[in-house]
């Protein structure tokens, strides 16, 4: 479904991504890990359209989307969350989802919105102001809900678990593993914590200094000496 072909991104003289190639299928739930500054979020920005790469191609269902703007990619079915939640200001939780659904899919379906709200456990918060009246866990849930409202085929989740305490985290992880089959969506998820990721994803990719250094089953990847090295900080961090 998603095919990245040797993506390169440079910010000034700094190579943020180098020759990153990646395939994600609609049945996949892929973990994307790596130390801080490895280029994970930049990769998400390239896929969703916030950053234009200096080289390479992004194919989504065999269509080259590089020249397509942000909103057009969303309508094609690329949904994403932000690491720091970005609720739509001045709107309630439900209105956030309504706008996402109306513009992301072209039509409004209230029962679908109820279903999503129920799934992310925000049903009783639906009339709250999204920007000012939600706790962090709820904001993170809203991020996921907004992305779901556009009926995505591919979901990019950027550290949805970071900053949550243990109870919230466990609840969220349960939600994530259901997400995949409940909404029939391929998932690429960024996560800092290796244990979390290996419990949710079968397949894991590792980025380090903008390069993809490993791609395989969680077990195999975390035994890879180069990956271990990047995490223990001999070359990275």
């Amino acid at each position, binding site marked *: 479904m998603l095919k990245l072909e040797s993506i390169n991104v440079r910010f000034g003289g700094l190579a943020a991504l180098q020759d990153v190639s990646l395939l994600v299928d609609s049945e996949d739930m892929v973990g994307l890990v790596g130390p801080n500054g490895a280029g994970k979020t930049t990769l998400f920005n390239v896929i969703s359209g916030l950053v234009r790469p200096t080289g390479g191609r992004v194919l989504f269902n065999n269509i080259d989307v590089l020249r397509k*703007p*942000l909103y057009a990619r969303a309508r094609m079915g690329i949904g994403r969350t932000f690491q720091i939640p*970005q609720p*739509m200001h*001045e*709107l309630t939780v439900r209105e956030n989802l309504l*706008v996402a659904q*109306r513009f992301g899919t072209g039509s409004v379906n209230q029962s679908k919105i109820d279903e999503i709200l129920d799934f992310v456990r925000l049903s009783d918060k639906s009339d709250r102001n999204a920007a000012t009246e939600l706790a962090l866990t709820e904001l993170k849930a809203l991020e996921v809900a907004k992305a779901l409202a556009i009926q995505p085929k591919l979901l990019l989740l950027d550290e949805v678990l970071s900053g949550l305490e243990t109870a919230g985290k466990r609840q969220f992880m349960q939600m994530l593993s259901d997400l995949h089959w409940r909404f029939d969506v391929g998932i690429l998820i960024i996560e800092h914590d290796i244990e979390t990721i290996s419990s949710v994803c079968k397949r894991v990719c590792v980025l380090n200094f903008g390069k993809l250094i490993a791609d395989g089953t969680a077990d195999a990847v975390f035994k890879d000496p180069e990956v271990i090295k990047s995490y223990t900080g001999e070359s990275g961090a």
Partner: protein
Amino acid sequence: MKIRFLLPVLAVVYLAIPYLWGGNNYVMSLLVAAFIIAGVALAWALLANLGGMVSFGHSAFFGVGAYLSALLCINYRLPVLAGILMGGIGAAVASIAMLPALRLRGPYFALAVLAYANIFKILAMEFKGITEGAAGVTNIPALPTVMGFDFSSKLGTYLVIVTIVLLFTGSYHLIRVSHYGAALKAMHDSEDATRVVGVNSTLLKAMMLFVSAFMTGVVGAVNAHYINFIDPDYAFDLGWTLLPMVAVVFGGYRTLMGPLVGAVGIFMLDQLVFKALIGTGHQIMLGAVLAVMVLFSPDGLVPLIGDKWKRIRRAQA
């Protein structure tokens, strides 16, 4: 706008005012001029509130609407009402020229549009073959007489402009409560978040620019047929931007009533008080109002009063 609020407004505007002052040409002409400003103020506020854009160039739309309608009615014998509609459409088309400026944010947009407004004025001056240049267009047909009622009279023009302004207010309201309105509201503080869920923010902003330009063009056209004479200095005067802007900042651009109340209030103040006290250079007071309002109550007077009112009501309850 709530119904219980709307009915009294309609009653005052269509019954009480014509009944009380319908025969007084002085009061009526003041009200016509005030509602002309109110119409532009509403269009300006729509762009500022929904589109998030502060424009210094609404005089361009006002002038284009005035010129197009006047020239079409004179040269092609178009009925005046059709001419007014074309004036609005023409202003919206003219705003296409401003689309590149939508790529700019905040102050860049505001000033680029100011530059555009100057272009239109120069064009009106220079294309003498079409616009008569600096000499201006005279003998612009007046508003028609329909079923024995003369709409070119002060009272008639008052009813026309008030109806137009109320229609615009209604449209503004409908846009605001629609999904488009919600998306536009969301774009202010979280543009990226809005775009990644499929909102084409540039298109939405462009639509607000068209709507705002259309409204301003219509009002400009009505004004041209009301005073029957225009020249570039008058039709494209920066005052057509300044006064509505002061009105909106005065009344508050977040609410529907703000621009209207602000326009009538500030226009009356300017005409009856500032002009009488100061004479030449009375615009200094408008500048002062603008500065003071932005400094002390950037959301305008109407929200300020609204808050006080709510607090009093809460205290009573």
